[in-house]
């Protein structure tokens, strides 16, 4: 018997239960529903407001602003660059929605490097409950854009907001499974020294989110 066979034989000896896959799926669904009934109530009338409150909470620590349309992103980036004394060169996630913007005097062509000061990206969607940005990796969303820069500035479509984690799971079921799904909740940090939270571990030290309509 090889290792795989031995492990399955041992499992089947301990767990004789079997069942039709439809019955198992129904049981799984019932488990999810039971969990949902325990969740604290959320005010879902304004998802952007809920997202802003959660992502901006001290324990998540993102900064946020709202603009009327994606076309206003370059102006928001210019303000951020000025406020943080950053160079006007930065890396932009290769998403056509960002690449086609009019960046004016800014220089968005910088390559992404291990020590990039700033990268500008765009999220696939957001989860309001937790203030999380969701990225699915692919040619338009390389994973490292979320992890290399010191400052990560992310555009988030208000229309893409989902109320809860469960809603993201349902939404993702209809999409191809990417190499990486990243739920990003605040700037990188660590509590590894005495349980005290310090920002800017190996990922970005600052996360700024620009919500557009």
């Amino acid at each position: 018997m090889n290792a795989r066979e031995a492990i399955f034989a041992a499992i089947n000896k301990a767990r004789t239960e079997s069942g039709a896959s439809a019955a198992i799926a129904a049981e799984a669904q019932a488990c999810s529903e039971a969990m949902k009934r325990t969740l604290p109530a959320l005010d879902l009338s304004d998802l952007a407001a809920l997202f802003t409150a959660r992502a901006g909470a001290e324990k998540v620590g993102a900064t946020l602003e709202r603009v009327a349309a994606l076309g206003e992103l370059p102006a928001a980036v210019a303000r951020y660059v000025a406020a943080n004394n950053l160079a006007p060169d930065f890396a932009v996630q290769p998403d056509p929605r960002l690449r086609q913007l009019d960046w004016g005097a800014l220089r968005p062509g910088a390559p992404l490097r291990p020590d990039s000061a700033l990268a500008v990206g765009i999220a696939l969607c957001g989860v309001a409950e937790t203030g999380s940005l969701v990225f699915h990796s692919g040619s338009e969303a390389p994973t490292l854009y979320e992890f290399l820069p010191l400052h990560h500035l992310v555009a988030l479509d208000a229309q893409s907001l989902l109320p809860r984690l469960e809603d993201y799971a349902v939404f993702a079921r209809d999409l191809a499974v990417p190499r990486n799904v990243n739920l990003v909740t605040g700037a990188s940090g660590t509590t590894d020294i005495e349980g005290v939270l310090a920002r800017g571990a190996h990922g970005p030290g600052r996360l700024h989110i620009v919500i557009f309509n």
Partner: protein
Amino acid sequence: MSAPAGTFHDRVEKALHDPQLKIALERTTGNARRKRAAAVEAWPEFSAARAAAAAIKDHALAHMAYYLEMFERNALASGAQVHWARDPDEARRIVVEICKAAGAKTVTRSKSMLGEEIGLPHALAEAGLRRVETDLAEHIIQLAGETPSHIIWPAAHRTREDVAKLFDQYHREKPPAHDVVSMVGSARKELRADFFAAEVGISGANFLVAETGAICTITNEGNAELTTTPPRVHIVTAGIEKIVASTEHALQLTRLLVRSATGADLTQYTTFHSGPKRAADRDGPEQFHIVLVDHERTKMLSELPEMLRCLRCGACLNHCVVYRAIGGHAYGGAYPGPMGSVLTPAFDGLQQTRDLPSACTLNGQCKQVCPVDIPLPTMLRHWRSRSWRAGYEPKIAGAAISIWAFVAARPALYQLAQTFALPAMRLFAKAGWISSLPLASGWTAHRDFPKPPRQTFLTMIRKGNRS
């Protein structure tokens, strides 16, 4: 790397004599307890949620073969290579062979308790590979030449002053200051180049998602993605009990796991990794290996089934009066605290580790905080009685221990005993029985277990922990 040495008794003795240890443990676990309490307060139905989380894990474990097969099928379809290992030896060999085939010189690792359990750090060193731990706490203990002492905060036994000394000594560029933020920045600088030099990155997994064939990691620092994205090869090592049905179940469990561990709603990075780099991708590894490890888990399906629910959140450690007094190294295994005292006898054999299930006041705190409602005290008692039946306990102590165990196992009686049994315990002490109690002599000098003047055992431990 020095694994904890000596007998359990020796290690407890040593820990109780270490004032720095006490400070470090109280700072870390105290912060964790406060933050968890705040998170739980914001979730009024938390105890119902714990039952629902237990049901989600039990569902996956009840259909373990079904879901593992589904996971394997979907992982293979994503281009992953799936390996199965019955025991740590097999698992280590698989990992080392993959590293060798990749021509690896440097291997980055993001924290994984399974990796510790199977002795991976040692195996990599033996194979002549340069191992770079990228999680901050793992980096600290790698510099110190130690093993983890907590499953969430491996450096929980180190104060910030200790860390400052280590970084001053070993970092190419000394930290500019010794506050926590400056030291975190120093580690960022120190490790940056290694993320890109490594040929292989190794991670663990918090969940194996059957529905998609993806593995899920839950981290704060960003080191996991930097460990698994740039190198040519990503190896995942995971216990087979990490299986869950779906992304939805994984996220629902994550909600409880993170609140119980750090008090946050989610950690900064919840990542699902599925297969190697795709044709159109601009980054990601060329090879993606998943090593699925049994190591006694299929046995636990019959013997300690609830233990397989464990999410490795660390809450039972943070709330354990014994852990808080002696720290993780005293336990001698990869997993300390209440959950470790249940797991280590299963992994290493009860005869050698039978002291662990006794290192417990049976106050029930661990079960109360466990996000998947694992009856840890019941399981510790299970080991105790197994040890009796197997004849592992020294005869002379028999009578005293059985009275103690009988009383301690019953919370109501234990309360009574706090009022009435003290004189009797003094008698035992005089007769020399108490010092033969497992642990007792370790506690006697420092916690006055057998001869408490006016106070009870628990109040003294509690007081000891505040002092």
